[in-house]
């Protein structure tokens, strides 16, 4: 049986609730890179991500007095981020342009990347920017809800249980969304496999 764990952010949350704005700054610094990854991989647009992230933290700051600690701060702030991003994507619709961040050059040394280039011919033949564009296009063809699950599980490495808490759905729903999204991605990337340099 899982033992109830203490929230590592509890102290910072309490200090923020009692009016110490500097404590919230520490939470912002701590969670910005992680939430940036979440929102960016759901929107595939850097400018939208920046605006959304600012709004997410502003909303969290306003709402933190009402945070009673029923979930961890981590789950709470991720729920806010996912919900706000899903609402934003509904409003944005299909009219958008990819605005991708640069791929860090250190990817060339990544063990998994090296394995992929060694075993998969499409990855070996395509250059990095082409691979990035294809991946993002495939991601954007998924529904918003499926993309959220794929982002949290595959890119951010969250366990199913945590994703189910954030999305407030069952773990079974998370697994079935992942299964369906993987099939979809396989289909979309099949074109890339057949024609790696377009």
């Amino acid at each position, binding site marked *: 049986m899982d033992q109830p764990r203490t929230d590592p952010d509890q102290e910072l949350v309490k200090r923020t609730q009692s009016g110490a704005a500097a404590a919230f700054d520490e939470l912002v610094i701590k969670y910005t890179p992680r939430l940036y990854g979440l929102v960016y991989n759901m929107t595939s647009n850097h400018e939208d991500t920046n605006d959304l992230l600012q709004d997410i933290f*502003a909303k969290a700051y306003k709402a933190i007095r009402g945070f009673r600690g029923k979930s961890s701060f981590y789950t709470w702030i991720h729920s806010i981020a996912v919900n706000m991003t899903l609402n934003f994507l509904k409003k944005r619709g299909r009219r958008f342009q990819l605005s991708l961040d640069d791929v860090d050059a250190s990817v060339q040394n990544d063990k998994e990347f090296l394995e992929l280039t060694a075993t998969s011919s499409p990855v070996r033949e395509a250059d990095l920017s082409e691979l990035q564009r294809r991946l993002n296009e495939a991601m954007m063809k998924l529904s918003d809800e499926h993309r959220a699950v794929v982002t949290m599980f595959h890119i951010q490495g969250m366990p199913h249980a945590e994703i189910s808490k954030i999305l407030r759905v069952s773990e079974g729903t998370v697994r079935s969304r992942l299964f369906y999204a993987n099939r979809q991605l396989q289909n979309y990337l099949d074109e890339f496999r057949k024609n790696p340099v377009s």
Partner: protein
Amino acid sequence: MDEFDDSEIARLLRLKRYEQPPPGYFENFLHEFHRRQRDDLLRQPLWRICLERAHSFITRLDVRPLASYPTAAAAVFVCAAIISLKIYQQPETARVAQQSPPTLSLPANAEGEWNLAAPVSMPMLRTQPVRSFRESAQTHRAAPPRYVLDSVPVSYEPTFRF
């Protein structure tokens, strides 16, 4: 078969972690956050700032347990008590004006000759104020002038003598 399987897709997606914002982005994010908060605060009207402060104060107090029927009933009772106290503490002049007896004025011949040929004359009611405006103003300088319309209850009508 040269097809992306689940593990390959997972590995490909993990490479997306290497997509990073421009250098210095995370360092500047907090400054940008503070700047936007200040701008938002300056744009907001004063009443909204007060409302938000009050809301956050109430949220901090956690007054939800107080929001019950007994509390509401007690609040209504207190309000009623305050209002009734206010009503009973009205200025004395108002009560005097309300309680002053109506003035009856009869025509000059009402007591004297009464004949059946003459049309029945009803007692005339004076519709002028009991006191002139100037008198009233002199007596109650603080209170605004009040007018009292004379009215005669049925029991005040003079009995006719035959």
